[in-house]
């Protein structure tokens, strides 16, 4: 980004990324719209899911027909897995596609909230790291789990802003800030962002990046929202680096209080 003055690319695993926005590829109305939106977002890393080929061909073909691994860093996920065992299976299937040895590890613990099963996530992370994976672990906004995932060797820890697809924004900025303060590996906030202001607030917490899918795909105009998200992530990052003023619950005038007309000189 040439318009980013204060920021540097960030390293994750054995890669360096300039864009701090990572986007998903799910839920778009058409493949063309997806590709256009992803390009507009400026994202370099893009998540994909592993699923059965539809042998009846009623659904669209695989995503590699639309997204080139030359253009984007494709990150296979383990979305939809409810056990560590399933997550390992999906991660290995994703790796066998031959793109890279990275995985967005996700082990869900509850259908209603899609909140992560942190114990199973940790268990799977340990195994995948031992198996040579670069693991980016989706987790709760819980500091202790985040620290354990870092200890397990994950290349990034990804606490949620709020539940997947909820669009509720960052429900717990303090926890996010504290996770960022305490970890050495990149912290990417994954899930829950609803609109540009949420992305901006997320980045203002000092995290290394933000991952989103529904906020862009489910917008009335996904391409427009993708552009907005790109700008919001840049704005939030710049604001964080610039250091915000202290908030206070009393007004402080911006203009001089001296030199006002018709007043006694003091």
């Amino acid at each position, binding site marked *: 980004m040439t318009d980013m003055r204060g920021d540097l690319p960030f390293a994750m695993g054995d890669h360096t990324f300039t864009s701090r926005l990572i986007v998903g590829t799910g839920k778009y109305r058409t493949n063309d719209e997806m590709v256009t939106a992803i390009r507009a977002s400026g994202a370099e890393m893009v998540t994909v899911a592993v*699923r059965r080929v539809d*042998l009846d061909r009623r659904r669209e073909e695989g995503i590699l027909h639309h997204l080139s691994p030359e253009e984007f860093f494709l990150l296979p996920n383990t*979305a939809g897995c409810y056990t560590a065992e399933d997550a390992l299976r999906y991660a290995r299937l994703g790796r066998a596609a031959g793109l890279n040895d990275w995985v967005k590890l996700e082990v869900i613990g509850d259908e209603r909230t899609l909140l992560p099963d942190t114990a199973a996530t940790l268990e799977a992370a340990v195994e995948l790291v031992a198996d040579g994976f670069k693991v980016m672990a989706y987790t709760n906004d819980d500091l202790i789990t985040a620290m354990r995932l870092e200890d397990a060797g994950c290349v990034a820890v990804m606490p949620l802003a709020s539940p997947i697809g909820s669009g509720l924004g960052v429900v717990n900025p303090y926890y996010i800030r504290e996770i960022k303060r305490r970890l050495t590996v990149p912290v990417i906030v994954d899930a829950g962002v609803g609109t540009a202001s949420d992305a901006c607030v997320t980045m203002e917490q000092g995290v290394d990046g933000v991952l989103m899918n529904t906020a862009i795909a489910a917008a009335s105009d996904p391409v427009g929202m993708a552009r907005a998200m790109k700008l919001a992530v840049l704005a939030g990052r710049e604001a964080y680096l610039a250091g915000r003023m202290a908030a206070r619950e009393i007004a402080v005038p911006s203009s001089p209080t001296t030199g006002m007309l018709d007043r006694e000189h003091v």
Partner: protein
Amino acid sequence: MTVHFVSIVLNGKSRVVRNGLTVAGLLDDLELHPGMVVVERNRKIMARESLQATPVEEGDRIELVHFVGGG
């Protein structure tokens, strides 16, 4: 008696294929490019190099997966 057909479970559905068909031949029949799918046979991921030499056998449980949109 020669066995002409074998029964397998392909992506969760029962299917009958001709005896002697290789996994690569199965993909070909389905018009799937081997570079675009990953094959799991009886819970073991197959190396692409072994597709040509591996016959589909009676009772095989085969999963063909690929990347789709996801977050």
